[in-house]
């Protein structure tokens, strides 16, 4: 691996690493617009120009400079600073000064870099070039070509990621602008990424536009629960309300992207399908009452006729807790895992990010089943129900009845979940669980990667984190697993289940870790074509 020197700091990086990434590794931020780690190199913005100290000469753009032994650059010399200032001046030559009404304000690289690297007296006495404004280019996108700095990120995204190629540069000179062919629209399911990668306010999101100034938003790292891919996200929220999800870079999962379905996943937090209160026999009840009633119901039947069903939408912590509660309190009861139907879920599938499995934690539930051979699968459960061996089902989130259909007629259901579904609606007792944005925990994605979700919002209604509901149910039955918080639950899980061996929340960090004995599910994400 070549060793390069950046501002005097030596660092070893893999061969082929470009100098923007190498500098970042050494702790130096090289400003850039057109460069994107998951797109090909365009080299047009010129903002990343650096001075070569050794192994070359003059000023070169860092994005197109590959690490090689002996290469030394400076990112902070007077010449480099002057180039940045000059580039900023050129970029703003024809850029409208409409920051007060521009939705990019606050997360605009023109603004950020101007404050850091620009800061000059305006010398502009000449008119600006007019271009197309407020163009409706897709269900989720608005284009203002005057704000565009022609970095071509969006064009490359359409070419290299979605392969749809709708956005193009038109004209040339300072009349260059991006646009789509008249009469066409961007219709793919990854539109939000175009707004994300646009470094300025040219492409903005219709869903977020004018909803909130970004500087008011708090951000919490989490994971999308829209499907088994588990795209890493940032939940952007203020005062208990989510305004958007943004993809968070994880090269092992979603690079820098997420689909539009997942991106709008926050809309179900406050949806009418939310379960906010405990219900007993159709009547609203205090949560404590609900838990007591659930425990009483479980005590009231033959333990061997009880089936605990681990959830593919439940956290690893909750599934582990349910398994522990079952084994500790009703050792004769059956424990199963199965994928529930979710009729509300979107059905789109592709080989980029959207998985056919719309549940975020099937791999996690399966990992527990692999650990305890006595845990049955969906077929086993259906068989047991059909044979009449199951009189009571304890369900975490999933729509198990939807899957079992008529076979489960007359079976009593205790449902612990955050969303209404057929199972929750038919349940004798419903206990409200939090939305994934309202709790800590982990999910295991389709490739067997364990990733953290983090609490961004206060729980709605009486809801409690799924693992905590199970904990309380266990306590009411006599013995809970003994976790005070999600981190402890995970630690206990990791101490017991080999696939999670030794993991802690701290180890998982922002990007997660693969299961120790990876059990990849079919149809892993295919490798994206290498950028040309």
């Amino acid at each position, binding site marked *: 691996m070549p060793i390069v020197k950046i501002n005097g700091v030596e660092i070893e990086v893999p061969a082929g690493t470009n100098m923007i990434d190498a500098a970042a590794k050494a702790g130096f931020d090289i400003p850039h617009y057109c460069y994107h780690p998951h797109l090909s190199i365009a080299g047009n913005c010129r903002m990343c120009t650096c001075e070569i100290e050794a192994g070359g000469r003059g000023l070169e753009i860092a994005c197109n400079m590959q690490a090689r032994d002996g290469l030394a650059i400076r990112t902070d010399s007077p010449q480099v600073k002057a180039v940045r200032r000059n580039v900023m001046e050129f970029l703003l030559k024809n850029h409208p000064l409409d920051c007060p009404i521009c939705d990019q304000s606050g997360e605009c690289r023109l603004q950020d870099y101007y404050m850091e690297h620009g800061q000059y007296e305006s010398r502009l006495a000449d008119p600006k070039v007019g271009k197309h404004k407020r163009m409706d280019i897709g269900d989720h996108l608005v284009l203002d070509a005057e704000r565009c700095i022609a970095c071509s990120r969006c064009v490359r995204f359409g070419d290299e990621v979605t392969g749809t190629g709708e956005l*193009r540069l038109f*004209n040339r000179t300072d*009349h260059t602008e991006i646009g789509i*062919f*008249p009469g*066409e629209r961007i219709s793919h399911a990854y539109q939000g990424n175009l707004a994300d990668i646009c470094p300025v306010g040219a492409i903005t999101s219709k869903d977020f536009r004018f909803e909130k100034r970004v500087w008011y938003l708090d951000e919490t790292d989490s994971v999308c629960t829209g499907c088994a891919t588990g795209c890493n996200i940032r939940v952007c929220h203020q005062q208990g309300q989510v305004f958007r999800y943004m993809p968070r870079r994880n090269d092992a999962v979603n690079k820098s992207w997420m689909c539009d379905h997942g991106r709008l996943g926050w809309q179900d937090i406050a949806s009418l399908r939310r379960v906010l209160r405990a219900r007993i026999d159709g009547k609203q009840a205090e949560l404590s009452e609900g838990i007591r009633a659930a425990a009483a119901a479980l005590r009231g039947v033959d333990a061997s006729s009880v089936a605990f069903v681990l959830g593919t939408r439940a956290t690893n912590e909750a599934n582990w807790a349910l398994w522990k509660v079952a084994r500790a309190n009703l050792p004769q009861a059956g424990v199963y895992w199965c994928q529930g139907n979710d009729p509300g879920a979107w059905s789109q599938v592709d080989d980029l990010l959207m998985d056919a499995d719309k549940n975020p934690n099937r791999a996690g539930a399966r990992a527990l089943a692999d650990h305890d051979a006595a845990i049955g699968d969906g077929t086993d459960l259906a068989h047991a129900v059909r044979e009449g061996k199951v009189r009571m089902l304890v369900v975490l989130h999933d729509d198990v009845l939807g899957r079992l259909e008529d076979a489960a007629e007359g079976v009593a259901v205790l449902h612990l979940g955050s969303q209404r579904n057929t199972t929750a609606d038919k349940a004798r007792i419903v206990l409200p669980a939090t939305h994934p944005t309202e709790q800590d925990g982990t999910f295991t994605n389709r490739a067997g990667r364990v990733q953290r979700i983090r609490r961004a919002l206060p729980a709605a209604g009486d809801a409690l984190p799924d693992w905590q509901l199970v904990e309380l149910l266990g306590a009411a039955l006599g013995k809970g697993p003994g976790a005070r918080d999600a981190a402890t639950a995970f630690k206990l899980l990791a101490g017991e289940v080999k696939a999670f061996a030794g993991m802690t929340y701290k180890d998982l960090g922002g990007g997660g870790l693969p299961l120790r004995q990876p059990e990849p599910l079919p149809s892993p994400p295919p490798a994206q074509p290498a950028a040309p």
Partner: protein
Amino acid sequence: MAAFPQPPAQGHGPVDWSDQDRAEIAELMTHYPTQRAALLPILWLAQRKWGWLSFDVMRRVAQTVDLPPSEVYSVATFYTMLKKQPTGKYLIQVCHTLSCKLAGADRIVEHIKDRLGIEEGQTTPDGMFTLMRVECLASCGSAPMMQIDDDFFEQLTPESIDRILDGLAKGEPLPLPRPEVDKWTFQSLES
């Protein structure tokens, strides 16, 4: 500097190639390792056939080379000779870059404007002539000069322009006689 012309909304309606066009396109594609490389020649063919590149024409070309139409539009708007809007029967393009300017290109443009009664960028009411200024056409030694469609007319004087435009107006076909075409040194019109 004038803005690049944006194609008008009206176009040709659905268009299609003739069998002869298809044969020509197929032959063109054999010149290159990719079919996309034939895009410029095919755009030229389309422009000869349909006069200008409307969105309908660009859509047809896009299908022919299997590209998104936006890509064809992107390429078409990069090159100034590809017409994104219709012009008159004859497109007069007067070079006005430095050598031609030194040789009096501005006077040539004024003469043509007066004679045709149109401004730059306009077409005569009878649809015969469109007048444009263009950048250097690599005829600096025989300046001032203009291009009408595919032909160069060099060492222009008001008289020679009148002769050329009279000829075209009378229906004489291009190429008109061009005595300068076989020369490579010239006597300055001023000397």
